[in-house]
């Protein structure tokens, strides 16, 4: 194995929310780990220096949910294509949900996915295991085996569990092994094959609506089950202000529960559905501006402590049909960081909080020693230029999925360097 380079990143604005750090200084890396922040340690000889003057240096981004499509849907994307795209967005760690084909419900599939990611060499890839065998919603998966194979959590992904008893047993069994249960809160009966938020816009456009209650009912139910079982649960991709308020209550009560939101929910609303552009077809659906504002508040107050991409790359055909017949989802890896920084520009929250939601926030939920620049930790680092504005062009995305609703949006910052374990995996200058 080659010796890992000593690197010094000089003169950048180093932001490490976990350590309450925000100042212009240097960062030194040795052996793939953070060696020091500030003065050059005695005897340290950098093999490489990166001039980060005028740039922001922060921990590499951890994306709590990105569908990479492999195995099973390689016509949409592959582990190699998406992990490469992720690095251009400053992402160093990705969690992939188990809704692949075959499903991530055995150590073999888990191992295969991790192997492919290591071979590609761009990102740390942490699989989420299926909570039930083949995601069938009724038979528990071999969670202990999944955990030892490297799954960081278990989840039902999009598929509903058969009933509340299975939900309870799944939480209990996962808790036995200290595994986090990730839940996409959706009552399948209330969502009833809908494709838009049940409200004025869907009423007028004749789109089948998904009521807010589809989410709030599931959140309330699973909070009750978590209290009964003592399990630690995480709600994935909240979409309503009401669910965010319930989360605020649960946190005040001291419940062991956390939540994330997909970045597009903090920018888009049901109004964007006008014109039936299928790039706005997402699940859970885009809701009202009140919901968007409620979610923004919850993120700002750390009630929702993670922003994720919920990346779902699609081939063009998947989106070329009448709106309800298209597949939901947005290709979001490359816009995750810039759209989060846009929230800072819009005074939703301060820069350190925004970076925390993308780094130490998700690391804490997963219980991983990542998402910070503390000496001794892996040198997963994102460097971006806060002055370099750019416009989103779907065709220019590195992801195989060109399905973005942010076509033509101005992004406030550009990632210039991404380092994984002290190795430069992306550099804007080189990739251009």
């Amino acid at each position, binding site marked *: 194995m080659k010796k890992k380079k000593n690197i010094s990143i000089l003169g950048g604005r180093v932001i490490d929310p976990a350590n309450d750090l925000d100042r212009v200084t240097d960062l030194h890396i040795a052996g793939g780990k953070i060696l020091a922040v500030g003065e050059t340690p005695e005897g340290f000889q950098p093999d490489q220096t990166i001039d980060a003057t005028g740039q922001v240096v922060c921990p590499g981004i951890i994306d709590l949910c990105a569908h990479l499509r492999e195995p099973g849907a390689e016509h949409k994307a592959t582990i190699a294509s998406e992990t490469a795209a992720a690095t251009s967005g400053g992402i160093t760690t990705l969690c992939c949900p188990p809704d692949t084909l075959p499903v991530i419900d055995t150590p073999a599939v888990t191992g295969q996915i991790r192997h492919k990611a290591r071979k590609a060499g761009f990102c740390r890839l942490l699989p989420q295991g299926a909570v039930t065998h083949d995601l069938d919603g009724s038979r528990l998966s071999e969670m202990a085996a999944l955990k030892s194979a490297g799954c960081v959590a278990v989840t039902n992904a999009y598929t509903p569990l058969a009933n509340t008893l299975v939900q309870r047993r799944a939480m209990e069994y996962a808790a036995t092994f200290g595994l986090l249960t990730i839940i996409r809160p959706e009552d399948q009966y209330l969502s009833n094959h809908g494709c838009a938020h049940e409200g*004025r816009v869907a009423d007028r456009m*004749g789109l089948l609506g998904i009521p807010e209650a589809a989410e709030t009912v599931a959140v309330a139910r699973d909070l009750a089950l978590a209290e009964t079982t003592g399990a630690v649960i995480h709600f994935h991709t909240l979409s309503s202000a009401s669910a965010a308020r319930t989360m605020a209550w649960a946190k005040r009560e001291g419940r062991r529960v956390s939540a994330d939101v997909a970045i597009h929910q903090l920018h888009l609303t049901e109004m*964007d559905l006008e014109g039936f*552009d299928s790039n706005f077809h997402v699940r859970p659906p885009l809701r009202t501006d009140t919901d968007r504002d409620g979610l923004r508040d919850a993120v700002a107050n750390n009630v929702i402590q993670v922003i994720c991409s919920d990346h779902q790359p699609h081939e063009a055909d998947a989106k*070329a*049909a*009448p709106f309800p017949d298209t597949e939901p989802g947005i290709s979001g890896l490359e816009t995750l960081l810039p759209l989060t920084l846009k929230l800072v520009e819009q005074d939703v929250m301060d820069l350190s909080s925004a970076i925390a939601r993308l780094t130490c926030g998700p690391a804490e939920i997963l219980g991983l020693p990542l998402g910070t620049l503390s000496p001794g930790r892996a040198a997963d680092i994102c460097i971006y230029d806060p002055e370099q504005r750019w416009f989103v062009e779907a065709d220019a995305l590195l992801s195989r999925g060109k399905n973005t609703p942010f076509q033509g949006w101005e992004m406030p910052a550009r990632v210039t360097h991404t380092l994984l374990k002290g190795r430069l995996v992306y550099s804007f200058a080189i990739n251009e």
Partner: protein
Amino acid sequence: MSRSNAELQLDEAGRLLHFLTIDGLGREMLTEILDTAEGFTGVSERTIKKVPLCRGKVVANLFFETSTRTRTTFELAAKRLSADVLNLNISASATSKGETLLDTLRNLEAMHVDMFVVRHASTGAAHFIAQHADRGVGVINAGDGRHAHPTQAMLDMFTIRRHKREFVGLRVAIVGDILHSRVARSQILALNSLGVSEVRVVAPRTLLPADARSLGVHVYHDMDEGIRDVDVIIMLRLQKERMKGALLPSEHEYFSLFGLTERRLALADSEAIVMHPGPINRGVEMDSQVADGSKSVILQQVSYGIAIRMAVISMVIGTQNLRMQDVAV
């Protein structure tokens, strides 16, 4: 990609390029459609029931959902304009072989079709086709999912204008399954755009959108109150399959609460007319005496449907022709 309804349906001079929804068209355009249809009503009564306006044009009736009335009136309308008509019932052929909607469209365009009349079970299907159709090809929505059925709404407006002359001051009640009805959505838009004084919807809450008032209507759950003093009663068809879910308990209870009977009809204005887009479920939505009674204009709606569809087809083909001439110059 995402364009407003007005941008998609009208050219720079405000002429009709496609007819997809009432939304975004405005009173002037709706009135122009009604006036044009007025001119075509005579054609059906002549010995030679044809005018040469669309001679040499090919209109494809692209029906992904079955329909008798709408498809035949579109076919007749196109033929009376001297167009050639292709009738394609796609539900039975292409889609079952896995062909995508876009492939079906491309194949037909290769046959140099000038217009698509589209009916599809998915909301937004006509918009999708209009956005992907070649320049010079017009698209008319003959019903998409729960979204819109604009020619039905316009023939209803035509019927109302024939009987009431003016829209201003009218009170109109729409009764029945508003939630699932593309007809109701288009009617509500057209009635409000044409300036009636009040649109009411009458239905149990399970057949109404959660926020029905945002559509621009007054909501009634009591039939007697809902049709009191109205000038026009529009009864909607109740699909039989609605009885299977948890939307309604029985046809019997529905009819006893919302069925239109002679007794209830007496509560409306003495000059009131009764409309229904068809086909009627006698004894579910209304009594036979009402359906066949003197106030019923249901069969006139069907005849006017041809004139309205002639108007829309000729207007769209006319605009698309101009568009192609612009390209040629």
